[in-house]
């Protein structure tokens, strides 16, 4: 019996046929494809979850600016502020996701998730939910493997590189992985996971990659925070029972086609968008002379 999957429809089908949650199918597929034991696979996942948590702490505690001076210390400012609009858990996800991306920009250790530029969304969402609901390792494993399965399908059916598909492929994919992950952490069902992914990804379509001075800072750092909250919105809708009219694999295909239709100036070349604003150009020129 094989648990290997190519699409999210495959994962959904396997989950329903075997009456097993998505994360369990993903673990079994990993065992099947690599020949590794469950213990080894779960152990490595927990090592990476620990790096998620460490990178949140590093991003908050280290208040220094980055080498470029464009970011750093912003997660700490958020932590000192009392939120007026967001719920405590959503505000925490916003703060933590920004913390992880600041840690990344300041050369701390992170886990690319699925890329370095989008490495804050999954850890931000998972650590916030884990803390607020006082969850154990088992819950983090549910989130990790659900997110990984979603990311696996997007990587192989579409793309996750900003240079190929724009930011929708990077932060958009990260948010889709996170939306599914937090539904799984909260023990939502397979349909809710898939709807969370579809609702999340549908609402990032067209997002471009236009980093100032070619660095993973502006707009990347704060964008990771904003899309962590976006993942919460999608997860909340799915858990309330809302469904996506467009099936999730078709949304992934749309994302792929849109990405490839984007002009190259808006795919990580820093030749368009925010990078070529008056201020963006000025910052880039200053950094060249650094």
């Amino acid at each position: 019996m094989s648990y290997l999957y190519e699409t999210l429809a495959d994962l959904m089908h396997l989950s329903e046929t075997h009456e097993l949650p998505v994360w369990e199918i993903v673990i079994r597929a990993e065992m099947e494809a690599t020949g590794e034991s469950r213990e080894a696979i779960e152990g490595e996942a927990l090592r990476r979850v620990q790096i998620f948590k460490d990178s949140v702490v590093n991003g908050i505690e280290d208040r220094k600016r980055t080498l470029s001076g464009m970011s750093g210390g912003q997660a700490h400012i958020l932590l000192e502020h009392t939120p007026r609009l967001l719920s405590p858990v959503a505000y925490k996800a916003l703060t933590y996701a920004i913390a992880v991306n600041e840690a990344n920009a300041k050369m701390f250790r992170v886990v690319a998730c699925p890329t370095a530029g989008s490495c804050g969304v999954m850890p931000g969402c998972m650590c916030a939910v884990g803390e607020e609901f006082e969850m154990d390792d088992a819950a983090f494993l549910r989130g990790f493997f659900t997110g990984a399965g979603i990311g696996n399908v997007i990587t192989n059916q579409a793309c996750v590189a900003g240079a190929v598909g724009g930011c929708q492929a990077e932060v958009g994919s990260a948010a889709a992985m996170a939306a599914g992950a937090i539904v799984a952490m909260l023990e939502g069902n397979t349909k809710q996971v898939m709807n969370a992914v579809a609702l999340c990804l549908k609402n990032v379509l067209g997002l471009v990659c236009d980093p100032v001075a070619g660095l993973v800072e502006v707009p990347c750092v704060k964008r990771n925070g904003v899309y962590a909250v976006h993942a919460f919105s999608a997860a909340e809708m799915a858990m309330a029972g809302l469904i996506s009219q467009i099936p999730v694999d078709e949304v992934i295909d749309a994302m792929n086609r849109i990405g490839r239709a984007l002009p190259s100036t808006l795919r990580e070349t820093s030749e368009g968008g925010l990078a070529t604003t008056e201020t963006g150009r000025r910052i880039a020129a200053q950094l060249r002379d650094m």
Partner: protein
Amino acid sequence: MSSVFEIIGPVMIGPSSSHTAGAARLGKMARYIFKEHIERVDLTLFGSFAKTYKGHGTDRALIGGLLGFDAEDERIRDAFKAAAKGNLQYQFIESAEEGGHPNEVRFDLYGKDDYHMTIVGRSLGGGRILVTNVNSLDVEISGEDYTILTFHHDCPGVIAAVTSLLGRAAVNISTMKVFRKRKHCEAVMLINTDSPVEACVMSEIQKNKDISSVMYFEPLEKAVTE
């Protein structure tokens, strides 16, 4: 389908998998290929590496790699200090030329008694790398496989001699490529294998009269180079 650890991974020092993690692996690979103690290195950066290396910490990552640090080693952040401590002299040269790839670096490595080696490599994205040239000979070393490189004379029988030695040692070849400059001239054979190749097999290969030299590399993360 990929491994889940390629999707949620690699574990790395930020900020960029291509400009930082890949750079660290290139540095480590250069150290591994050079084998001798490195006293001095000139690093020529091309393309995007030349334009954005300071902001991405590409310079620290390359030096960290040359010191033997892995892409997830937090000492990369302070690699310049570690280089000073380890008496590694270095200079960065920003080339205005287009390299063969947007993220390319050339290492000119110097050891004891002016022993010198030139290594060119590129960062492919996601932390993956490819060394493309060693001492003006085209090669392909990814640091992900067990790799044998032979530098030999292009004549009948050399390839068969090497592959039969591997076959007798029960080593399976996964991929293989042969390059040559011209007919009956210098040639390079690149062989990736599924399992390690023992030193005695390598020395048998080296004994072939048409082979001038052989190199063997294990996957970068398994190779102990620090």
